[in-house]
Structure formats: structure tokens, C-alpha cells
């Protein structure tokens, strides 16, 4: 199973990569919107974690582009700020506020991949 991690913070990229690989997933990393779309197309990830605040594009627009490409790939919005009042994020399969405790995120990933 392949996870596409979209986040512009280098340490978080590494943290996610190590944590997910430990769980047995393949991990590809994108630091901005453009990379994210390219990797989404080329790597065919099974799931995506997506930060809303990216340097080059609004994460919600990225969400839309990915859903237009392939609506079946589950996307977890994971951000540092609560956007849950924004209806747009409801188009994603899950939404979590980023935390140093990664258990919730890992549980969500497992849940969505087993569906």
C-alpha cells in the first residue's frame, strides 16, 4: 500500500515517512501542490494525507483536483488548524488536526484502506 504525504515541513515529512514505513506502507512525499499532483498521477497512491496550508496552492483546491482525477482514492485532510467549519473539507474522507500523537492518523489510514 502506498501513501502520498503532502506537507511542506521537512521534519514532518520525515516523521510521517518513518512512522508509516514502520507500519509497512510505501511512502512518497510531496512538498508542494505541483509535486503532489505529479506524484498522485505517477505513483498511483492508495491514500493521501494532505495539509491544507501549502506554499503554492490551497489544499482544498488540490483536494478537488485529486478527486476529479480519481474519486476513489481516500484523502485525509491533516492540518495544523481546524477547518472543519469549511464545507469543502467534507469532500475528503477524513479530517484530523495534526498532532504529535500519530495514533489517530494511523488508525484512520488503516480504516480507510480496509474499507
Amino acid at each position: 500500500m502506498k501513501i502520498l504525504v503532502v506537507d511542506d515541513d521537512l521534519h514532518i515529512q520525515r516523521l510521517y515517512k518513518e512512522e508509516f514505513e514502520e507500519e509497512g506502507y510505501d511512502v512518497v512525499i510531496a512538498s508542494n501542490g505541483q509535486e503532489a499532483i505529479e506524484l498522485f498521477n505517477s505513483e498511483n497512491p492508495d491514500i493521501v494525507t494532505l495539509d491544507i496550508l501549502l506554499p503554492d496552492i490551497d489544499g482544498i483546491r488540490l483536494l478537488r483536483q485529486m478527486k476529479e482525477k480519481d474519486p476513489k482514492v481516500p484523502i485525509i485532510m491533516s492540518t495544523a488548524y481546524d477547518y472543519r467549519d469549511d464545507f469543502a473539507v467534507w469532500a475528503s474522507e477524513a479530517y484530523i488536526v495534526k498532532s504529535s500523537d500519530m495514533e489517530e492518523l494511523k488508525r484512520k489510514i488503516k480504516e480507510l484502506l480496509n474499507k
Partner: protein
Amino acid sequence: MDLSDKQKIAETIFEHVYEGIIMLDRNYKILAMNKAMEQWTDRPAADLIEKDCKEVFHDSTEICPHCAASMTFEKGEMTVEIQKETQGDVTKYAELAAYPIKDEIGSITGCVVFMQDVTERMRFQYKVTETKEYLEGFIDNSADAIVTSDLGGMITSWNTGAERIYGFTKEDALGKFFPFVPEFLVEPEREMIERIQQGEVLRDIETFRKKKDGSIITVSLTLSPIKNAKGEVIGISCISRDISDKKRVEKELVRRNQELNRLFFISSAMRGTLELDRLLRMVLTAVTMSDGLGFNRAILFLLDETENVLKGAMGVGPSSPGEAGEIWERLSMEKKSLTDMIREVEAGPLRKDSFFDKLSTGMRIPLNEETILTKTVKEKKFFNVSDINKEPLSDIILTQQLGTEAYAVVPLISRDTVKGVLWVDNYYNKKPISDEDMRFLAAFANQVATAIESARLYEQLAVAEKELANIFDSIPDMVFLINTDYVVKNINESVCKRLGKRPEEIIGEKCYKIFHGKNGPWEECPHHRTLESKKEHVIEIEEPYLGGTFISSSSPIFNMKHELIGTVHVLRDISELNRLQERLVMTERMAALGEVAAKVAHEIRNPLISVGGFAKRLEKKLSGNLKEYADIITKEVGRLEGILNEILGFVKEMRIVKESITSERLIDDIISLVQSDIEERGITIVRESGGPIELYVDPGRMKEALLNILTNAVHAIGSDGTISIKTYVQNNAAVIEITDTGEGITDDNMPFIFDPFFTTKKVGTGLGLSITHRIIEEHNGRIEVKSSPGKGTTFRLFIPVNEINRTV
């Protein structure tokens, strides 16, 4: 007397006569000239003797004695001629008589010329000529026939006017006995001639004359004798004027006057009432009263344009011969005039009970049928059917139901449109309807139509006024009218409510007292400003006396003469609006804060996550004290994250905030959001409900869910269609069913409709239905969709009943 004495006398006469005398020889040399001659020369007579006459006279004047002399020399006898002399503005005439002077053998040796000033005489003569010409011209050009005859009546002159009036030419008439006297008047005419012969003048005699074509005309005559210088009557002058037209007009005027008197009375009475029923009765009374139009029965039909029929509006007349006799007898006993009757209708109670009236009001004549009544409407003409058996188009309904055998109908035309028809007959006395009756009826009908139109307009106006009053009262803003003296003239209910007073406590009072609690005009007063500028004024005022902040708009009111008579004010309480606005500003500020917070969260949380995340990884790999240190870091980071969450204020796992709300309320709210859109598109919403269902849901989220379906329905229809919304309970679930008559969803698209970003619209995010789906899922409900492309779509939202039960 000796010769010298005679000479003396002759010389004296020569010098003192008034006539100028001049003697010339054959060579026109002046031999002698008397003093009177000086008026023609300006020079002393003595100076001119022996001078050449041609030099003396030709230079200074146009009078020339030698000219007269030369004629005498030529002819050898006495000549008389009149010469004219003009000097400046003065014209003088002289009569010159030249006598030849002959010697013993009879040859002419000279000439004596007598000159007499005849200016006065000449002037008079010219005047006579002029007058004569003028008179002749006048006679010839006169519009009147001016003819003269001898005493026997034989025509001696015949002017153009006579030719024109009588048709006979001058040639036809001259020498004949008065050709224009009709046979039956020849004798009386001779009597008149005799009177003229006695010197009598006959003026302005109205009599008849015959034209060449035999037709008889009415003329006014003036006959006078023509006398000769001795005063003997030698002929007759006859001036005649064609007054046929005048006579006709006069006759017409008299008749008109009578008619107008009646019409005027009736129409002024009609104009007095604006109640349609009363007016119609007045009209029909006037038509049927004997000193009105005098018909036996009359019915007014009014045109109903929407149904395209003539409807009997009212009928007046006896129902049977017995009743007719009774009524007429009673009327003649009571001696009630039309005036009395009309007054009675005008003021008395309205009775509408006669059998004939009921019969009349039941009648309906469709305009698409070809009958006399419908023709009256279509052709805008009146019809007089003197015998229904000879008129194939006579109205069967009238002959059958009213038994009429002859009747007349006139259209009621106002402003060029037919408003109805007036039907009359003389059923009981069988009196034929004359042309005169018809004309009067038609004249009357015009009055009636205008009056009916006014009454109808008035009725509409009354309705409109009532509506306006209703609107006026239902406006939540305070509306009031103030005249130029600051007196409140009119108010709506909102004013009473706000002030807690009855209308009579407000109207008639000064506005500053009522609205500001002041004793004099308020300096900022918008009313005052509007009066001054005659323009609209809008200001925002805070008026503690009224307890709030208001937008006040005042506009000038003008009367028909464009004079300013006051102002109308609308006061809207914006206290609430202001509060809302304040809240909006606050929210905007919060949103700005939120953005900052998001940035802060991003900048701080990300490093925190790295610290905490890696500490956790360390903790797994370490043991002993070091593991404990890592654990401390992890925990402290967890605490910091907690604080961060708290500061940012969003530890709200519950996305759904449930409240009690009825299904009706939810639906009312979402419909109000699309109301203007559906009205514009001509979409009707049909609601069906088995009564309100109490729901326990997040109202905001649920409205969002329903609204997405409703907007899709509206877009699917586009324009002109129906959306039905049903609510009911089924299998422990509240069901909200939304059906549209739109384009439907194709089978190809159906599987994707809840997918995010899936849309068939040109404009749209494609999130609507996926959000709806999510919201319903959050409420543990479900959605069913059925659609037939081209026919429409039905969405059914099921909200579990246990959710309902929880509310109780």
C-alpha cells in the same frame, strides 16, 4: 347811353366777373386779360398783355387757354373743354369756353376764352361715379339675391347672388315675371306688389321661393319701391336671402334645447351618483318614464370582456299588462314627474325586486353569436327592429323570454369603446319606435356610457384605495403625512403601535410634538428641509423619544396644480440593523483573527509535532533514564498542543450541534431562501404535509443539506415547473421528499451524484450533494434518489425516528 359809356360798362364787367377772360389773336398773343385770370397765373394781368400765351401758361401751369383756342381756330366754332391742373397735392379743374372772334367777312381773327373754376363740381361728380360703381359692385357681389323689376313684376336686373340662389341666369330672368315665385304664392305676391306701388317698404318677410330646379327654399325678403327724381314709383327692388339652413338650425336648436333640458337634468343626476347600481336604475327610470324617453321596458346590458358576453345588469318595466296599467295609473294619480322619480332613486333605498329585473339580470348573450345585440356592440351602431318576424337576426332570448315584438338597441360608447347596450321596447302600448325616439335614445346613451364608465372607474378606485390603505397599514415602517403647517394629516398603523396611541390622538397634532416631544419645530427636521428644497431627504436619526435609531426619508407631495402641500415620511427602525451590523463587524474581525491563528498554529504546531513525534520515536528506542526523559518531552509537547488547541478554541469534536426543530420550520426556512429565484423562473412549490414533525437535528447543517437538493431541483427545472415537498413518517423515520419536474438524472450519471466535485452544471463546485450526503450520514439518516430523465427527480431523506424520540 353813348358808346363810351357802353365801353366803360363793358370794361367794368370785364374786370369784375369771377370768370377769367383772356383774348388771344391767331398767333396766341394775349390781347387782353381780366383780373380774375390772375388766379391761374400768379402774375399781374397788366404784365402779360402782348405776351405769347403759350409761354405764359405752359411753363407754370397745365391749364392752357391756347389749347382751347386752338380747337376753336380749327373748328371755327365755340368749344368747351375741362382741363385739370395739379400743383403739389392740390388738383384744380377749369372749364374753358373758347369763342371765336370774326371780322366783317367772317374769318376768325382771334378768340375769347372764358375760364371757370369747376373743381368742386368735378369732385362731386367723381364721387357720384365712384358710389355708383361701388353700389353696382356691391349688388353684383352680394350673397343676397338683389333683383329689380318694373311695376308689373317684370325683371329689369338680376345679380350674381340671384343666379346662385335661384339657379336662373340673368338671361333666363330678364324680362320675365318674378320667375322665383312658386305658383301657390303668385296671388299673395301681387298683393305685395300693390303695397309697394303705394310706396310701402316690406322688410324681413319670410316666405318661400322656387328654384330653377323646382325645389322650394325659405327666404327672407325685403321689398322696396324704386322712385324716380319726381318721387314716383317706377319699379320694385327685391332683396332675398336664403334662410333654409338657418331655419333648419333654428328648428334643430329648439328641439335640441328641449332634449338637452331633459338630458341635462338626467345626466347631472347621473353624475351625482357614483354607485353603479343606483346609476343604472336612474338611467332606466329616465328611459321608461313618460316624460323621460317614455319607453315601456328597458334593460341595460354591460359588456363582460373576459367572458366575451353581454350580461343583463338591470331591467326596468312592468312584468304584465296588469302591472303596467297599475303603475301608469298610480303615476298619473301621484303626478310624479321624472324629476321626482330620479330624486327618489338618487336618495331613496335601492330596490331591486321586480320580476322583470330578475329576468333581465339572468340574461347572457355571447358575443360570438350574430344577433342584433351583438351587432350593436361590434358595429357601434343603433338598431331599430320594427318587426322581429322580418329581422332574421333578432335576438331569440329577447323574443322568447320577454315576448318582445319590436325593439330598439343603442350601444353605450365611452372613449370609443362599447361598454354595453341599452335595450328598449314598447311592449304594452305597442307604440312604434320613431326615428326621433332613436335619435334621442342615442344621445341619451352617450351620456349613460360616460356615467357608467365613471361609476366603474370610481368602483375600481374605491377598491384600489382600500388596497392602498391596507398596504399603507401593513407597512412595518412608520409612514405619515405632514402638511406645510407641521400638522400630521395621516398615519399608518405602525405609527399608532410605536407611539401606543389611537389615530385620533395623533392626526391633527403638530408633528414635532408627536414624534419628538418638542414644543416647536426641530432644527434638523427633514420635513422642514423637504419643504424648503422640495426634494427628497434621507437622514439617519437617533430619537430617544421614539426609542431607537431610524432612517427617515421624507418626500414632497404636490397637488394637481403642482403646489407643495406637505411631505410623506417613512421612518424605518434600524436599531436592530445597527446591532446586526456591529455583530458583522465583530465577526469580520474574528475571521481576520482566525486567519492569524491559522498562521500561528501552522508555524508553532508543525515544529511542536516534530519535537513531540521524534521524542516519541526516541522513547521507543531508548531505555532507563533516557527513555524517561524522552517521555517527559513527549508529554510536555502534548501539554503545549493542548494549550494551543485551547487558545485557538476548537476542541469541538462534536461537529453536529443538535436542537429541536419542526420539519415545517426547516422547509419554510429553505423555501424563503430560494423564493425570489423560483418566482422569477415561474416555478411553483407545492407542499404536502401530514402535520409538523419534531426533529432533533443540527438545524444549520440540515438546512444546508435540504437547500442543496432544492437548488438542484430549481436548476434542473430551469423555468416553469413544479417542485413538491412532502413530509411524512414512515418506518420509524421522518421522510422529507423533494420532487421536481426537471430534466432528471441519466443512468450514466446516477452512480456519481454524491461524489465530491461531480457536477453536470456549468457553474458549480460539485460539492452540494456530497455535503448533503455527509450531513445526512452524520445524522444517521439516508438518502434515496429516483429519477426518470426528462420527467424529473425525487429525493427522499430519511431521518431515523429514534432521533425524533430523543427530543421528547
